[in-house]
């Protein structure tokens, strides 16, 4: 726990910290301005729950933008160590390399979960605000489809795990933030452009885009993707762990 706390201290005054908060606010604010500027276009048909359409836009935004933000957050967190040239110092402390690897990865996942939770807290809060400020949008007349939202959250999180592990490895190995981020964004771009190709499910960076226009009936976890994700996660965890503990010189 103390090691995890030290990671929290390191995040103080960093761009990674502010990006976790501001990045989570970015898409919900875009949606807010769109709903405010073109309210008439978003008025639902009688009896239709507006939350479904609103959440779908939030989900798609999450697939499109959050993945980029997540790559940047990973790069920035590891850049703190690269910039301080602190790997050599960490490795001379009475703590195993394996522990350093796992604590940092856990901290990165904790930051990403915080980012995603904040993203949805902001999105739902903005929906409720619109329900009060713009009654014609009918947000206040319907319940939030919680199952739909939580199912997406779970599936989305599962979809990004292999990408996070690979991006973590890349950012560990490449000191230059621009290069590691560029590789991540390139992967995401390929995943987005070829998202309809039948074999794209085997490309880890494409997984989040398989969630595009997410439908509750097509649950992501029930398909092959779940097992492909697990296999990729275990494979890249094993490879990066071995590389970090045996070969990485810092």
């Amino acid at each position, binding site marked *: 726990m*103390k*090691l995890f*706390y*030290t990671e929290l*201290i*390191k995040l*103080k*005054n*960093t761009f990674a910290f502010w990006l976790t908060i501001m990045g989570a606010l970015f898409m919900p604010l875009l949606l807010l301005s769109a709903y405010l500027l073109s309210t008439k276009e978003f008025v639902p048909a009688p009896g239709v729950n507006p939350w479904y359409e609103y959440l779908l836009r939030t989900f798609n935004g999450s697939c499109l933008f959050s993945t980029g933000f997540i790559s940047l957050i990973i790069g920035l967190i590891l850049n*703190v160590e690269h*910039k*301080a*040239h*602190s*790997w*050599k*110092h*960490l*490795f*001379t*402390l*009475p*703590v*195993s390399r394996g522990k350093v690897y796992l604590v940092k990865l856990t901290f990165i996942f904790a930051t990403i979960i915080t980012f995603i939770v904040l993203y949805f807290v902001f999105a739902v809060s903005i929906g409720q605000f619109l329900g009060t400020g713009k009654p014609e949008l009918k947000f206040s007349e319907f319940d939030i489809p919680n199952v739909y939202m939580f199912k997406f959250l779970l599936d989305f999180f599962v979809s990004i795990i292999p990408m996070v592990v690979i991006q973590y490895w890349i950012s560990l190995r490449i000191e230059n933030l621009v290069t590691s981020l560029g590789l991540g964004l390139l992967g995401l771009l390929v995943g987005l452009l070829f998202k309809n190709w039948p074999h794209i499910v085997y490309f880890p960076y494409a997984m989040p885009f398989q969630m595009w226009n997410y439908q509750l009936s097509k649950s992501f976890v029930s398909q092959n993707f779940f097992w492909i994700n697990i296999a990729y996660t275990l494979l890249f965890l094993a490879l990066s762990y071995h590389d970090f503990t045996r070969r990485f*010189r*810092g």
Partner: protein
Amino acid sequence: MQNTEELIIETSHVSFGFSKGQNALNDVNLQIPKGAIYGFLGPNGAGKTTTIRILLNLLKPSNGYVNLFGKRVTGTSNNLFSRIGSLIETPSLYEHLTGLDNLLITANIRNIPKSRVTEVLEIVGLSSYGGMHVKKYSLGMKQRLGLAIALLPSPDLLILDEPTNGLDPTGIIEIRELLLLLCKERGVTILISSHLLAEIEKLVSHVGILNQGKMLFQGSFKNLQQIREEKSIIEIDTDQNDRAINLLLENNHPVSQGKEFLEVKFLNICQLSAITSLLVIAGLAIYRMQLIESSLEQTFLSIINKTGQP
């Protein structure tokens, strides 16, 4: 070096190469006894930092092994490092954080109480600057903070790679006094690397000289001084130097013709009066009689230069 002393650091036939066929270190055998301040000397690129990285388990030797506190260093020797404080090259500091935060990070990992953080800040003279962001620190202050981090665990062994880099003369003296105090009062064994002998000659009890990855000298500082004395000469100039040479050789004084003057190998101070009497009695006019002592720096350089020659 005596093998009967308890060795805190011992390397046996350590070799290392960054690429195949090119060894950065060749058969290095360090022996550092308990309570010593060991000056690890060598020019830039000699292999000092590589050796230190091997000692700290940051690099794996291609040959040989390292013993710390009498125990073999392996991939799972993390516990050994709870007794070691180190500073390698430039200190690893998080510049976006305060000096205090930097210390707290290491203290947390090492399970050290916060009271010790305040203590080490005071030891290195940074107690008034603990709350300042490290990016605002001068180079010397950063070096002191790096030293404070190394001192956090109250180590039995301190490994410092060029710790006086960036310090002004006052700072160098302060660090020197602090290290002497740590060694004297707490029995801390210190390995300090430097490329300048003058910087550490007032500090060290033992010296190791490394060049091109090979140990050229290892022993007590007194041993090095002995070598220096052996390199001292007496310069002599008289009105009849040819006669003086014959006289000196007849009386078993090893003499040779130098660039300007006659040079006699210095053995002891009595030799000066004996040579003077000999020349005066023979009726020679003495124009010059001077003892030329080799400085430690010259001794150091002459040892280094031996390997540079083909």
